[in-house]
């Protein structure tokens, strides 16, 4: 109720998992006891949907595989890699297929995509971490660990 903006509302929701409802003004109204679970939404739109999509696995394969990188792309990517990576932005012109090619060439293992497309940021972070550990460039590592942090965040998420 104290929230003044939508963002603030969302923050409170994220923190507590509870949203404000106008009904809460009623003194006798206890949300944990007076809520009716709706059959349509809960049973069909949630339970059955979850069952079909997750348990049975009834969903189309999202194209997890990127097209192969062209030779030119790979040449460019190798150049950047050979120069030595210090910043993610150095790779900003390299497209995802070429990034994956780099990963393959340098034996960077990537997290299991779980059937989804790998995010660019994840690949970038993996490359950065790998590059740094190969060079044992410790100072770089500590300076750049925010990349790794971001990456692990994505993985956990």
């Amino acid at each position, binding site marked *: 109720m104290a929230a003044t903006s939508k963002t603030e509302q969302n923050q409170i929701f994220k923190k507590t998992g509870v949203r404000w409802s106008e009904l809460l003004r009623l003194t006798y109204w206890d949300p944990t006891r007076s809520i009716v679970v709706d059959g349509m939404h809960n049973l069909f739109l949630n339970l059955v949907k979850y069952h079909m999509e997750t348990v049975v696995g009834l*969903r189309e394969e999202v194209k997890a595989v990127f097209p192969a990188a062209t030779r030119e792309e790979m040449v460019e990517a190798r150049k950047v890699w050979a120069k030595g990576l210090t910043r993610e932005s150095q790779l900003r012109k390299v497209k995802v297929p070429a990034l994956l090619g780099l990963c393959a060439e340098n034996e960077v293992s990537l*997290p299991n995509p779980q059937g989804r497309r790998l995010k660019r940021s994840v690949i970038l972070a993996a490359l950065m971490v790998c590059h740094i550990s190969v060079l044992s460039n410790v100072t770089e590592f500590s300076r750049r660990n925010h990349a790794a942090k971001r990456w692990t965040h994505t993985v956990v998420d």
Partner: protein
Amino acid sequence: MDAHRGGLTEDVEENADAAAFADALPSTYENVTVDNPSADTTVPVDCDYYRRLSKDELEQIQQDISNTIRPRWQSGPPKQLGTKGCGKLKADQWRSSIEFDIPVSLVKLWSEMKSTGESGIDDKIIDRNGKTLDSTMLLHAALHWATSYRTSGKHAAEYMKYMRAYLASLRDLFPNTDLRTCHHNALFIGEMLVRFGPIHGWWMFPFERIIGLLQQININYKMGMDYNFSLHPLFAYFSLGELEITMLKSFCAAANLRALVQSHGCPDIIQSCAHLLDDCYGQDQRGTLMNDLRTLGDFADQEKPWDYDRQKFDRIEPLVHEALVRFSQSRSIEGWTAETDALFHKEREIRGLKIAEINAGAKNTKGRHSIIFFQPTTDAELVPAVVRKIFSMPRHQNGCEQEAIFLAIHRYKPLSDRVADPFTLYTGFGARLWSEELGPVEIITSSQKICHAVSRPWEEGVRVLCAIDRVS
């Protein structure tokens, strides 16, 4: 992690934060770092087991869906189910997919897989498929009890039993995945079935319908609801809430009209116009809600005198007539004799259920309303049949002539022993395999219990049929 430390030995001290950070990384990190020789420490997480149906399986299911014959009022799952293109499914579509389509398809897919015993298919996968199928059936059973038109302590108890079993099966299939809120919520529905009555009375279908209607109303870009906007000098001449009042008034007017037509005190003149309303607005009969409205409506006009024209009568074909004579010998109906002429109907509504003869309808709608389940004798199990003819004859009762409707049907023959019926494992499921061979002509009356069926070819000469009895 050790590999990292190896790389970090030189100046660990000054990079203590980095080392601490490396320690704090979750274990998933470990598996992805390149130079970890002992990478086989992977924990078997669920995502490895998250199975997605293969492309063939998905295509088979889509094929099955388009082969299914269902009555018009049931909105089936989209033909492209499982692809991005089909968009979000409606609650109704999920409902019909769990009630018939998906379980039947899965039984077919996976029982075949088991029986052929192809090499290269892991036992693990077969086992897992079996478990998934069982859990689907548990969910089906739970929903069956929850969506019944009746409720009782037994209904609630059965619902809870199956829902618990279903949740347990989920935990078994995905030991590392937490159940969702909806799974928790589902455990409260049992209590609510007892408290509030059948779920049809309090679920959200009617409200969603109203929301849908409201969204479609043409408001001519008036912003009735935007308070700030109407304070703006440009819009000041719009009176606030005008739009809402118009909506509310016409909504109430429509509701009152509907109530008036249905009430007993309705003037005859309006009553006789009611069919006009029906013709104008009664077109869309699809979906759970419309079906609810129809099944829960009353059909008190059974005892009306029948006004008929003998000129329109046709001769009954010999085969059907023989059956009719046999029928009249076995059962005597008061004031009725087996005549040789009758009024035939291509389709006919019987207690709100549209029944059509098998030859009626276009290519893609054929059989939609002609495959029925009926009750041969009281307390007998429902059996499937195909409607050959529908006809009515006069019948003298209570001093006036009434209409007696008869259906000439062919029963589906039970399956021969040659084919094993995988559905016998799931007794509560309702669908069964029947031979496509038809029995001799039989006559049933409209007073017998009749309901529509969903059906789908199973294999050569075999059909899977399921009664969709929305009353019990």
